[in-house]
């Protein structure tokens, strides 16, 4: 399985994501550049956390229109797997690969702590290694994680079993406590918490490993 992680100007979790992936996948992960107009042959693309383009205009708005994103969207529409974490989730909504929008946290503060999450569905290549209904702990660190979605869209996601993670104690006001969501084809996942920061006992937890193990199982 070949994976790559995109670096945009202002991305700061790209290296952490590559390190976490490499530790579980057991092979080098490619560093992709925002201005590239071609992608190497890949099975998985990661869009990392950070402050791409300074969060200017709207979080993830400019990154979603970076040259590489036309290729990433094409890749996803062909069934390629895409994992967007934090700013990556924002970019995926701005690129139209996931529904809804991420707004300023309801409490207005930047939230930076480890939070409990429910793994709502194990029926995805991102969550199959977790027992469904499993409770895990992952760090969050964001100012604009308030996931806005219409009630109609929430119902649709529930019907299609596309809510991947839910906050147990909602830290940002997200609709229906949604922390992570799958695209219609189940090959795209966006989530605000940082699984790549919970892959090493040295950094306080390893509940993030399951997500990368799921991908390894699903994609080889």
């Amino acid at each position, binding site marked *: 399985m070949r994976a790559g992680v995109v670096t945009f100007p202002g991305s700061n979790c790209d290296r952490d994501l590559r390190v976490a992936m490499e530790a579980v996948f057991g092979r080098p992960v490619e560093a992709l550049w925002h201005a590239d107009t071609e992608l190497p042959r890949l099975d998985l693309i990661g869009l990392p956390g950070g402050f791409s383009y300074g969060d200017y*205009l709207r979080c993830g708005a400019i990154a979603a229109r970076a040259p590489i994103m036309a290729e990433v969207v094409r890749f996803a529409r062909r069934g390629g797997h895409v994992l967007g974490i934090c700013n990556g989730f924002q970019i995926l*909504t*701005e690129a139209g690969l996931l529904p809804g*929008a991420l*707004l300023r946290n309801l409490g207005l503060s930047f939230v930076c702590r480890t939070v409990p999450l429910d793994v709502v569905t194990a029926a995805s290549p991102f969550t199959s290694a977790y027992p469904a209904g499993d409770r895990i702990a992952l760090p969050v660190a964001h100012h604009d994680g308030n996931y806005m979605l219409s009630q109609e869209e929430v119902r649709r996601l529930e019907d299609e079993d596309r809510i991947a993670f839910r906050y147990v104690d909602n830290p940002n006001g997200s609709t229906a406590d949604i922390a992570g969501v799958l695209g219609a084809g189940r090959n795209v996942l966006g989530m605000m918490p940082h699984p790549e920061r919970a892959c090493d006992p040295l950094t306080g937890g390893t509940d993030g490993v399951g997500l990368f193990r799921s991908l390894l199982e699903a994609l080889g």
Partner: protein
Amino acid sequence: MKARVAIRYRPGVLDPEARAIARALGSMGFAGVRGVARTRLLELELEARDRQEAEAQVRRMCERLLANPVIETYEISLME
């Protein structure tokens, strides 16, 4: 030609910053502030040949980048 683009949250989108501003005004003693809404204003200087072309171009900019249709509406005004 100059174009002004006013971008607002759609009705129903909660703006906690606007609410915080309203509360701050209240706690400073300004009575009777029933609501605060923020509008993002962009001013563009264009090399367009005529108003129609300018407006069409700016509309495309709004649709493709400047406003997120999921949560925002936009209003364009042109001036020479």
